[in-house]
């Protein structure tokens, strides 16, 4: 067993524990979804108003799956979100303020104006900052899990999100295979939203279901209706439990639809209207709301109050971020190296 000199893996904010009563988990999940949706909508409106530099990428329609992934995790776990993971990020411990700071380029945000939109993260706190190259984060999660094992830390789970399009990358394949060989507690969540940008699944893969891939890697496979919060919470919880119990990587494949463009510049005119009216086209937030009402875990007034509260939270975050300083090129430390003595002045 290896003892690392500095132990770094302390989660910065606890999420709802996996042991919570299911009703509480559901309502908590719903509230994160609501916050994510409202935050996304705010970014979209800022984008339309020309207030955001660069693109805006939303998780509309994917909040249930995303939040379920994060809520299956515990303090100390690791999460590598992707572009549609507004809800999961928040539930994992990211803040609306840091989201707003990153989109608005605040010098006080975690990326300090260096990186934008969905590329934020705090690696030391288990929240990995995605690079854009699809598939590239999964092996990084593997490395953290491997290191934990070497350090004798037990019970960590690492989750990584990916779209169905990214299953075509070599990086996805190498990483899932690596996790399988090492029997790592990786939960790899594939959101099959039927499109990769404009590309339909028929141009992306030829297997019946992406879950058919699991056997080829020797990992467990799970499928879930990504529009159904209840199903997502249960499936992800189960997958995380299995991983935590030492049963190796878990491949979770969810079916759903992105209810927005690839980015806010895209009207998504290519989406098959039939899909929109089919069950995968349901809005998971509405489905979750109806479920809560039906279960009587919340009434309409409560939900309205939550909405108001979250709207307020979003407004506050954005207002605060907008008041913050933007980065100053003259103050900027123009180096990519951490070792001061190795910096060159060359331009």
């Amino acid at each position, binding site marked *: 067993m290896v003892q690392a000199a500095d132990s770094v893996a302390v989660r910065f904010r606890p999420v709802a524990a996996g042991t919570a009563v299911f009703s509480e988990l559901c309502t908590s999940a719903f509230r994160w979804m609501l916050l994510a949706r409202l935050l996304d909508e705010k970014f979209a409106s800022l984008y339309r108003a020309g207030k955001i530099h660069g693109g805006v990428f939303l998780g509309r329609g994917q909040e249930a799956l995303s939040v379920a992934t994060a809520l299956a995790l515990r303090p100390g776990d690791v999460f590598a979100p992707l572009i549609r993971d507004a809800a999961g990020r928040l539930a994992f411990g990211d803040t609306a303020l840091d989201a707003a700071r990153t989109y608005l380029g605040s010098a006080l945000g975690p990326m300090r*104006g260096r990186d*934008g939109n969905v590329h934020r993260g705090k690696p030391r706190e288990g929240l990995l900052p995605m690079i854009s190259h699809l598939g590239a984060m999964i092996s990084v999660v593997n490395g953290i899990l491997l290191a934990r094992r070497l350090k004798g830390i037990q019970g960590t789970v690492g989750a990584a999100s990916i779209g169905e399009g990214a299953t075509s990358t070599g990086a996805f394949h190498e990483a899932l295979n690596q996790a399988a060989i090492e029997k790592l507690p990786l939960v790899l969540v594939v959101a099959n939203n039927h499109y*990769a940008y404009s590309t339909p699944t028929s141009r992306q893969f030829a297997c019946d279901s992406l879950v058919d891939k699991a056997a080829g890697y020797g990992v467990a496979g799970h499928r879930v209706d990504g529009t159904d919060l209840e199903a997502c919470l249960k499936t992800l919880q189960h997958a995380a439990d299995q991983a935590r119990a030492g049963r190796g990587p878990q491949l979770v494949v969810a079916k759903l639809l992105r209810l927005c463009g690839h980015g806010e510049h895209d009207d998504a005119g290519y989406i098959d209207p039939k899909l929109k009216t089919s069950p995968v086209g349901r809005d998971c937030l509405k489905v979750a709301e109806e479920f809560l009402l039906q279960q009587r875990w919340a009434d309409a007034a409560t939900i309205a109050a939550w909405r108001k509260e979250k709207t307020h939270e979003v407004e506050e975050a954005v207002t605060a971020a907008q008041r913050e300083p933007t980065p100053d090129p003259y103050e900027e430390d123009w180096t*990519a190296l951490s070792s001061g003595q190795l910096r060159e002045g060359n*331009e």
Partner: protein
Amino acid sequence: MSLTYLEAIREAQARALRDDPRVIIYGQDVGAFGGAFKATKNLAGEFPGRVMDAPISEDAIVGAAIGAAIEGMRPIVEMQFADFSTVGFNQIVNQAATLFWRTQVPCPITVRLPFGGTSGSGPFHSQSLETIYAHYPGLVVMTPATVEDAYSMLLEAVAIDDPVIFCEHKYLYYHLKADKLPTEAVPTGKARIARAGRDLTIVAYSAMVHEALAVAEELKTEGHEIEVVDLRSVKPLDTDTVMASVARTGRLLCVGESWPWGGVTAEVVARVATEGFALLDAPPMRLNAKDTPVPYHPNLWAAHRPTARSIAAAARKLLRQ
């Protein structure tokens, strides 16, 4: 009629598809959608079966293009952003670039790289990668700076029997316009005097040509005649034209948008220093982006890459020497 740099790229592809049945296009979202930047707009409809959506598999995309080239086709690959070509890198530099040398069978593929910085795009959608491709033997690396060159050089890229890395600058996509498409062009491998002058040579390529031209205009009001050389392709690099210009002006400033270590500016300055030392009346100068990833925020981005302002400052300094 008025055409943007981006539209010229679309038109060149339309013409290549029309004129040559061997031409095909392969890349993510290039089909019915017309590409992330709309560079292949309507082409899938006009040329059924020849403009194909690819999976997110850059390695296999380039590999398949190479195979098709072996079979006599003329594939154009669109990378969604130049930055993503790093995952197709191996096929480009080790398979495409070595094929002719190893087997005498040419590999006429064109890899289109939408590249270069735009405000708000950040470290993974802004990279300038001409340097890493130009370093490898067996590749032609084109960096058109004008609407006309975007059009005619892309047609040349498709016609050339060697693999071509076609670096098309995203900043120029919408910023540049021309009245009509060219009917003839300077051959590949030849640089162009974008503006004649006698006091100082600024060597640039792609988007930086326009910054350099703005500097020339500005410094004219200060009484200086700046010559601007547009390299057009960075490999082959037209040393003759550069040298002839430096022979006229005695002063060289080379500007590139990529990172400072070992890029085009190093190569140009090294060639002039080794082969044209006596032509220089003052030490040559170079200006590159800073040695960090490309920052997202406009404040930082504007300071990261060379601009008319920083180029003008360098030029003034050099003119005083």
